[in-house]
């Protein structure tokens, strides 16, 4: 980095001296282009009213390169979550929604319509103006089934998609059939909408060009149909980022997601400035190096080859001692950021298990599940898997969430094998076999099977611990660690008895769709919900209530207090039914940044469990010091 560090300062000085009259400053590389006449001056590139960013530490200097790592096209989300530019955005501490592309917004009285007022003079990275036309074009693409098979659930209420209405060039309204005020929270937190440049992409869309011509174009480029070509040009499978397509992001990609390095260069038309009037971003270039293996990423980190990384390593808490030991060598600091795995290692019972009626009855018995919960030594799990960083509890919601209920979260979580044994005895499970395992009412050994995935390394380790805890209370646990795809297929087919949760499970923020919850704990309920009662099994009232909150009530309101109350209600219902048993979770992510990479907010731990990380920490204002 050394070579980059001083040059910009010198150049900047020159610039400042030569153009003191200008209100805004720009990166030296851009200034050179302006001087050559390749770019309009910075004042013309910025919108009328640029978004002014408060520096987190200080006003930075231009130049340099940030090296990150990713795992190729399937990891495009990681890039999206680094550069996304939504209409509105959360602040780094997740306490407040702030303007972004939209200068301001309004929610109608009845909560059905949200109107955004775009910044005037916003420009795409090629200089073309960004207007509501582009929002409409994006919506048009969402409504082209060949490209987007179904409209994303966040824009659909009661099966009816919202309307997107351009009121004028700079005003756009989202009109939902029912109250949907919380849609704005979804957008701010990490929602997956990226507006598309109509002036560029319309040349590939059949609504604008004859389909025959397009198909021929596609064939010439090695594709079969026009929509495959469109998807390639629009980066439909790489979170709507593709080489050649203008973006609103701080950086523009210049190589492909499957290239060895995904390189993105600064966007000369980026709409944000710092308090000193310097156009952002500070850093010239982002590199995302293609790394297939997480272990290699760790090695690169401790070897000092990465400048910032969080994704993929963010929940490797067990490796903390190593990260600490190599801090000097890798010249990085460790930052706690939002997110984490409040759910942590979580055991889910299939409420609609069918293969074995005896087991099905037992795992729907609250007392039985309480016994299982009491038998687990969560302190030990915390120590061996999470370096003692974790929170003991069921992890329904983030502990900082306003709706967090400690009593529910901590219920039945103390380690008490005697009590567990007593509960099981009281249930009549007193007969035991020669190896000390309890027998089921039908005389077979009481055996539970838990599925986990090879992809989640902690599943196997946690499985072994829980196996030994439950052996102490006479219950045999078979830990069945299988490939991730297979694991998912089993859950989809309602074949699992018990399963470990994914990282962010069991309960997801209200901003997301509730369908995923029942999907895992009770696939047949989920079928019932999805088919409006035509298929599957009718869920109990408690489950219906949770679904109602997720899909109808919570989306309708942006009132934080009301939403907190919903969260409390969900947690209580969940705790009452013990649909899942939590063990230990960690309510923050690990992030790593080079020591001299500055302006990164330190140790922000907010309530929201899954914000767009690191976009929420404003990479456009990071700089090399």
């Amino acid at each position, binding site marked *: 980095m050394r070579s980059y560090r001083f040059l910009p300062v010198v150049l900047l000085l020159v610039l400042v001296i030569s153009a003191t009259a200008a209100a805004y400053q720009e990166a030296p590389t851009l200034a050179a282009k302006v001087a050559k006449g390749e770019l309009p001056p910075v004042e013309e590139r910025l919108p009328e009213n640029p978004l002014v960013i408060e520096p987190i530490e200080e006003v930075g200097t231009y130049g340099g390169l940030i090296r990150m790592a990713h795992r190729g096209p399937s990891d495009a989300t990681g890039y999206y979550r680094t550069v996304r530019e939504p209409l509105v955005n959360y602040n780094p501490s997740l306490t407040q929604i702030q303007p972004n592309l939209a200068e301001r917004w309004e929610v109608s009285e009845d909560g059905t319509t949200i109107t955004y007022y775009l910044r005037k003079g916003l420009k795409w990275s090629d200089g073309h103006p960004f207007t509501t036309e582009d929002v409409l074009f994006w919506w048009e693409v969402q409504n082209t089934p060949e490209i987007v098979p179904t409209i994303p659930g966040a824009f659909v209420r009661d099966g009816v998609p919202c309307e997107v209405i351009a009121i004028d060039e700079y005003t756009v309204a989202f009109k939902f059939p029912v109250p949907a005020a919380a849609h704005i929270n979804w957008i701010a937190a990490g929602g997956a909408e990226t507006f598309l440049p109509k002036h560029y992409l319309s040349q590939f869309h059949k609504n604008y060009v004859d389909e025959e011509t397009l198909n021929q174009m596609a064939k010439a480029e090695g594709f079969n149909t026009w929509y495959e070509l469109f998807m390639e040009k629009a980066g439909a499978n790489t979170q709507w980022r593709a080489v050649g397509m203008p973006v609103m992001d701080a950086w523009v990609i210049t190589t492909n997601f499957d290239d*060895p390095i995904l390189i993105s260069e600064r966007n000369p038309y980026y709409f944000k400035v710092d308090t000193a009037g310097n156009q952002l971003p500070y850093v010239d270039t982002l590199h995302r190096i293609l790394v297939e293996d997480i272990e290699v990423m760790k090695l690169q980190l401790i070897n000092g080859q990465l400048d910032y990384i969080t994704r993929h390593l963010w929940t490797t808490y067990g490796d903390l001692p190593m990260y600490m030991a190599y801090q000097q*060598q890798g010249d990085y600091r460790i930052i706690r950021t939002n997110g984490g795995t409040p759910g942590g290692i979580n055991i889910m019972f299939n409420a609609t298990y069918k293969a074995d009626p005896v087991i099905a009855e037992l795992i729907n018995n609250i007392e039985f599940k309480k016994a299982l919960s009491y038998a687990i030594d969560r302190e030990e799990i915390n120590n061996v898997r999470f370096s003692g960083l974790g929170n003991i509890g069921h992890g329904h919601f983030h502990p900082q969430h306003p709706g967090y209920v400690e009593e529910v979260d901590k219920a039945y979580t103390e380690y008490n094998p005697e009590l567990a044994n007593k509960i099981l005895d009281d249930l009549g499970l007193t007969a035991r076999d020669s190896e000390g395992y309890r027998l089921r009412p039908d005389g077979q050994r009481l055996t539970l099977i838990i599925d986990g995935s090879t992809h989640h390394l902690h599943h196997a380790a946690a499985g072994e611990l829980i196996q030994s805890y439950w052996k102490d209370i006479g219950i045999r646990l078979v830990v069945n660690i299988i490939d991730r795809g297979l694991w998912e297929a089993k859950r*989809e087919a309602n074949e699992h008895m018990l399963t470990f949760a994914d*990282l*962010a499970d069991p309960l*997801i923020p209200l901003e*997301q769709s509730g369908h995923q919850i029942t999907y895992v704990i009770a696939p047949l309920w989920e079928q019932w919900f*999805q088919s409006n009662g035509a298929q599957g099994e009718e869920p109990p009232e408690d489950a219906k209530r949770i679904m109602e909150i997720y899909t109808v009530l919570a989306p309708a309101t942006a009132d934080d207090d009301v939403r907190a109350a919903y969260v409390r209600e969900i947690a209580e219902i969940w705790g009452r039914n013990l649909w899942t048993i939590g063990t230990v979770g960690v309510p923050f992510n690990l992030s790593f940044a080079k020591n001299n990479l500055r302006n990164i907010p330190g140790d922000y731990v907010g309530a929201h469990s899954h914000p767009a990380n690191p976009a929420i920490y404003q990479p456009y204002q990071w700089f090399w010091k």
Partner: protein
Amino acid sequence: MLRYIVKRIVQMIPILFMISIISFIIIQLPPGSYLNTLIAQMRATGDEVDMEMIEALRIRYSLDKPMHIQYFNWMKGIITRGDFGFSFEWNRPVSHLIWERLGLSVAVSVSAMLFSWIIAFPIAIYSAVRKHTLGDYFFTFVGFLGLSTPNFMLALILMFISSKYFGFTVGGLFSPEYMMAPWSWARFVDMLTHIWIPMIVVGTAGTAGLIRVLRNNLLDELGKPYVVAARSKGISTVRLVFKYPVRLALIPFISTVGWQLPNMVSGEAVTATVLSLPTAGPLMLAALRSQDMYLAGSFLLLLALLTMIGTLISDLLLVLVDPRIRYE
């Protein structure tokens, strides 16, 4: 000779077909499909899973059609258009993805092969000529040590050591500055500085086998009367060993070279995964895991083809080396 080659190539076709069918079945054997992997991935990253979208994708990817129709369409594409299908996970035509990686795979495998030959030949000859000496035991031991160490373990340890103690950059076959550069001499040299770990890891696994085969062949040959006859002419040992027994000992060896290739590629796959190399192996493993079936199937097909070509080449070499076959 030409007729022989043509005959061999014609014979390859039915086997290739069989392999293509087996590949296809193998990929589909595990329950579920690519969509399950996709769902699992989306869930793990906290993205929403929209079941309707999944259903729509199932139709788009033709995963709702019976297997034999999927197979038929795939084959049709390959034969008529050289189109190997579409990779679900990478969202690209398979042919956009595989060629450079296959090339690098072959580069790694071939350099590993050369490495193991360079190591194995002198050792084998030394061991055979100086049979049951300390040197023989020592080199045999070293060779076996390479064979005995699991590839992935060796790869990880070497990588760790090279980064911790020598400060080499980790992962990939190129330094960052050459990763995106077009091929040039400098880039080639840069690759050489990175290729040595996989070369050693993959190479050492084969070296012991090579030493053993060669040494035993050589021992067999050294005991043969023509060696004594040659000695009786006054020819020096070094010249004698290289001119006669080594040449003959190579024959059974060359005939196995073709078979070594798939093993090298397999070994390379594991090693490359650990080392995060941009070769075919990791891509193939990932494709197999996620049931990205056309990508995985194409790899299997091409690797099998490569093996057969390797076998053909080794058979042709055999003809060159052994006149007895030539005149049959």
